[in-house]
């Protein structure tokens, strides 16, 4: 479960998140929509522990993880995330990027996991390429595969399917939903596309000026 209570975050004079309260039960999906600058990305970063709140609290599975001036490290939160920019490590191959966060399994299991993800994300034959050798769409899919690889308990996806053609989008959405279902992950999905939002399923909320506007 992801719980956000009275959360606020400002950057200078811009109030990116403004007293927001939200609860997403474990294993459920929340789709966030809203115009540019409405605070969607900041909300995801606050949940991931990449920003400190100015006010309020974030709790995961009932335990507080962020308060003003205090936050648990991001890697201890069981979160997989696709960033607005792909953020692939340029010195690692596609395979190395995907498997970076995978620990505690054998080499064979990791290999199997990699092959499955490469197929599911339509990245066959690209495992040994470096990010600079990928198209924008391929890079987004690598970022998605990386977020899914460690089977996290919480998935925060910031417009993960931009630059994908419609057919591939449906296939990838199915992969995301399937993976989340298998691992019982809570999914927060940011998109501008209303049709995509409906396809993702789950609860759809709209953000504007740092607040939840409509459910």
């Amino acid at each position, binding site marked *: 479960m992801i719980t956000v209570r009275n959360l606020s975050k400002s950057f200078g004079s811009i109030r990116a998140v403004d007293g927001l309260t939200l609860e997403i039960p474990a294993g459920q999906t929340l789709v966030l929509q809203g115009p540019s600058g409405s605070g969607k990305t900041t909300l995801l970063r606050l949940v991931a522990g990449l920003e400190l709140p100015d006010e309020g609290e974030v709790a995961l599975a009932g335990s507080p993880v*962020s308060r003003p001036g205090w936050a648990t490290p991001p890697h201890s939160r069981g979160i*997989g*995330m696709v960033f*607005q920019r792909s*953020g*692939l490590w340029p010195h690692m191959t596609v395979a190395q990027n995907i498997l970076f*966060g995978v620990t505690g399994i054998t080499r064979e299991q990791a290999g199997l996991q990699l092959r499955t993800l490469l197929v599911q994300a339509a990245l066959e034959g690209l495992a040994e390429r470096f990010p600079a050798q990928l198209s924008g769409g391929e890079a987004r899919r690598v970022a998605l595969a990386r977020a899914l690889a460690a089977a996290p308990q919480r998935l925060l996806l910031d417009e993960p399917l931009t630059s994908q053609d419609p057919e591939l989008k449906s296939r990838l959405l199915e992969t995301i939903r399937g993976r989340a279902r298998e691992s019982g992950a809570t999914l927060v999905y940011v998109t501008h596309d209303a049709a995509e939002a409906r396809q993702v399923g789950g609860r759809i909320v709209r953000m504007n000026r740092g607040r939840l506007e409509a459910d």
Partner: protein
Amino acid sequence: MNKGAAYPSPDPLALPRKAGQWLALTGYSFVVLGPLAALLVATLLEILGGHSDWLELTVPVGRRLVLLGNSLGLAVAVTGIVMVQGFLAAVAIWSRAERAGVLLLWLVLPLMAIPSYIYALTWLDLAGVLTGWARQLGLASIGPFGWAGSLWVEVAALAPMALGFAWLGLRGVDPDLIEAGRLVRNDWIGLIRITLPLSAPALLTGAGLVFLLSLLDYSVPSLLQANVYPMEIFAEYSATHSPGRAFLLALPLVLPAASVTAGLLGPLRAMTVRTAMHRIRWASRPSWPGWFAGLQRVACALVGAEVLLPYAVLVIRAGSIQGLLSSVAQAASEIRYSLLTATLAALMSLPVGIAMARRLLRPGAGTAFLWVGVLAPLAIPGSLVGIGLTYVANRLGLQSEGISLVLPSFAGLARFAPLAVLVLLAQLKRLDPLLFEAGRLFQASAFRRWLQIGIPLLAPGILASAGLVFALTLGELAATLMVAPPGQATLTMRIYNYLHYGASGTVAGLCLVLAACVLMAGAGVAWVAARWSWPVSAPGEGI
């Protein structure tokens, strides 16, 4: 075909391409590579004339082999220690990103342009005080002499540079990449597998430059009574006045220096591409293993002591403000001459540097060769640059008073123009070509484009490179000693001459004056560098 549309990279000066190329190649070749080429010619003439025992000079045996080994060993040790120490201290500051830490960093960074022999002087002085105390306690005297002393002083002198490059490397890593790693692995793994590899170009560049500066320096070892190979070059030329013999004798030193310089090519090219400076916002401060956090604290304490203690000594030695003013009055002509020399070198470095940086932007068969030409002067000992310049001046009959007065400026230019080229190239590369293409669409006049778009966008690079050349020329000694005309001396020459008579209030005062001048220029460079990262994201992006 439209020439402008085919232009692959920013062209802020919009000069006719051939004219720019000509300016780059001839200006740079004549001023920067000229002394080296002249030395090569002189050497060949001597060999062909049968006047030189070239094989004996080129192959070091016996004492010279030992000296070469000592010089290489010292440079390797200095590089290893100073880079590890600099990286640890930089990580400590970076992972806190507190205002005090950053402020301290900007205070330390300009010190990288302070000549190393000033550090030698202050540590000698400090050792004298400690020896006095030791004697009172009946202990043996403490002196920073010989190899250990040279190692300590060179580490101290080069600590700001190592810290600067390590900091540049860490700040050059995109925070998104660090944050992506923090989500899935702990900070130590993230540092080793993400941040360290991505900051490698800056770290390797710093290590290479530290190695070269340590290998080619003789001022510190000579003051601390350790014999190194570069001193032999100076001694050989002083004894024989033969540029060819000096060059041949220098070859065993130049070869490893050239190898390191060639190795710098890759990291430097990567660095000039990734010059954006990022500030990471740590929601939760990185947590390091206990031993690593302990090492960071030790490194910070060492850098602090190495860098700041000498200045405390200088201030105490200089005595009062009156004493300082008296030192300034005594050396007024040297101060004037030094400022004139450094200003001239900085001004001359701009057209040459801009033209060469602009040429390096264009891909082509000759670009790799040009890179070698740009980096080559970094592998040449300063004394050899001075010998080459003297040879050129003598052969061309440039011995009039006016020309000999500006020879120290040319010495500074020949030694430090490569650094100006690198700074300007980095600035050119980080500018969006679209800005210049838009300028071509909306402004027909090349001169107005140059004035309204090129110069303002290039201004940080221009100021930074000019400040760098100014500061480094101000402290330059090895080449200046060779080319300064009779009756004229720079501030560094005066200090160096005084140093052999031991530390005094006058020398301390002059060192403070030199340090203040360098610090002002260095602070200017640091201030400009801090403003290199302009906001590029659209309003609202990432919120």
